[in-house]
């Protein structure tokens, strides 16, 4: 049985950024549905959960499918608290043997990068081929290199 911790068995907090940010967390009420073009330019936007009477908050679920692999975002669910969230995650996302470990994270706790800052955030690595082994063609054919 898993304890009250939501950070998983190796104690590391699942840091999410950019493209790995879970869907629900990044799409909730933070970017209001009304809004053609409301995504204003803050670089970091915490997303609040919707507050309906007695509505259970949203959680993001990460599943480790077997030892040696990372936890991967599997989906979301609703639960009243962390203890129930990790149990609901077990019941929902591992009933076909999908996992050996689970993380649940309140969707509202995930900080996502701003899609409007795509250029500012993600342009820099483009074109820096020299960070990749394939850039170095002259040594091709040399063994064990």
């Amino acid at each position: 049985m898993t304890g009250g911790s939501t950070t998983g068995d190796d104690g590391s907090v699942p840091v999410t950024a950019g493209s790995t940010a879970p869907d629900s967390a990044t799409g909730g009420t933070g970017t209001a549905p009304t809004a053609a073009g409301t995504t204003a330019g803050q670089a970091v936007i915490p997303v609040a959960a919707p507050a309906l009477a007695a509505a259970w908050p949203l959680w993001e679920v990460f599943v480790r499918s077997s030892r040696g692999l990372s936890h991967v975002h599997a989906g979301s669910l609703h639960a009243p608290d962390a203890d129930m969230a990790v149990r609901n995650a077990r019941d929902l996302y591992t009933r076909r043997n999908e996992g050996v470990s689970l993380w649940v994270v309140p969707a509202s706790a995930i900080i996502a990068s701003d899609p409007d800052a795509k250029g500012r955030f993600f342009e820099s690595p483009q074109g820096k081929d020299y960070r990749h082994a394939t850039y170095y063609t002259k040594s091709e054919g040399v063994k064990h290199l």
Partner: protein
Amino acid sequence: MSGETMSGQEHFDALIAADARVEPRDWMPEGYRKTLVRQISQHAHSEIIGMQPEANWITRAPSLKRKAILMAKVQDEAGHGLYLYSAAETLGTPRDQMTADLIAGKARYSSIFNYPTLTWADMGAIGWLVDGAAICNQVPLCRASYGPYGRAMVRICKEESFHQRQGFEILLELANGTAAQRDMAQDAINRWYAPSLMMFGPPDEDSPNSRQSMAWNIKRFSNDELRSRFVGMIVEQVKVLGLTLPDTDIRYNEETERWEHGPLDWKEFSEVLAGRGPCNSQRLARRREAHEDGAWVREAAAAYAARQAGSVGAGAVSNETGAA
């Protein structure tokens, strides 16, 4: 390419043109968002309402193996509804809102679940025909342009792979069983055939929303294309059962390279859609009842969570169960 130098619309159009995926926080046209919320929530409602006709037979399943399979299948449908609600929630509509719309009778779901399950053979026919039609619809949706929808569909399609097979095998057992079982199977196919064909939606010329959905890469094939493909599959499969489809007009049209079928009663379809099907009010009442009966439970859990958060702080909730 820099996002800052393109308008939201240009960026969106570029994604669609490149057959790339739109993600939750991307700018998207209001119509696209609305179409998705409508389609995904309808799809979710269909899974949830669709639990009822089959749950109707869980307590009476004729063998323990079949009981387990049926329970697992109906349970899967709850899961599928849940995955889909989650996908819709990424567009800014909370699940509670969608549930409220459903039980208020303001939302649509697949008409087919307003037909009653009268015999055990209906479990077979639903698995084979209804899930079969659903799978034809759903496989292309795995490539829907909206990322969360496509990802939910990938999971659903994987899980559903057993649904159609178990239905077919129920019918196969019945077809090879006693005369009464065989009659039961044929009767179920007769009743579910036309409604399952109508699951693909109205003919293309009467489906105004389809064209826009296809332009947005939400829908990949037209209603009639998918329906024709489905007819081509089941016309062969029914031979394995040694039973027949209640349609003598099925034929392959060499010219159009499409399977054709006899006329469908679209008047009945719109009647059921308008709420005048055999089980519409029963299905909604049952969902409303479950939701309302569960309110005190949801409130209790929320109140407990609030109290724990207030008194001990996050992460230090109950020390397990005291059970160890």
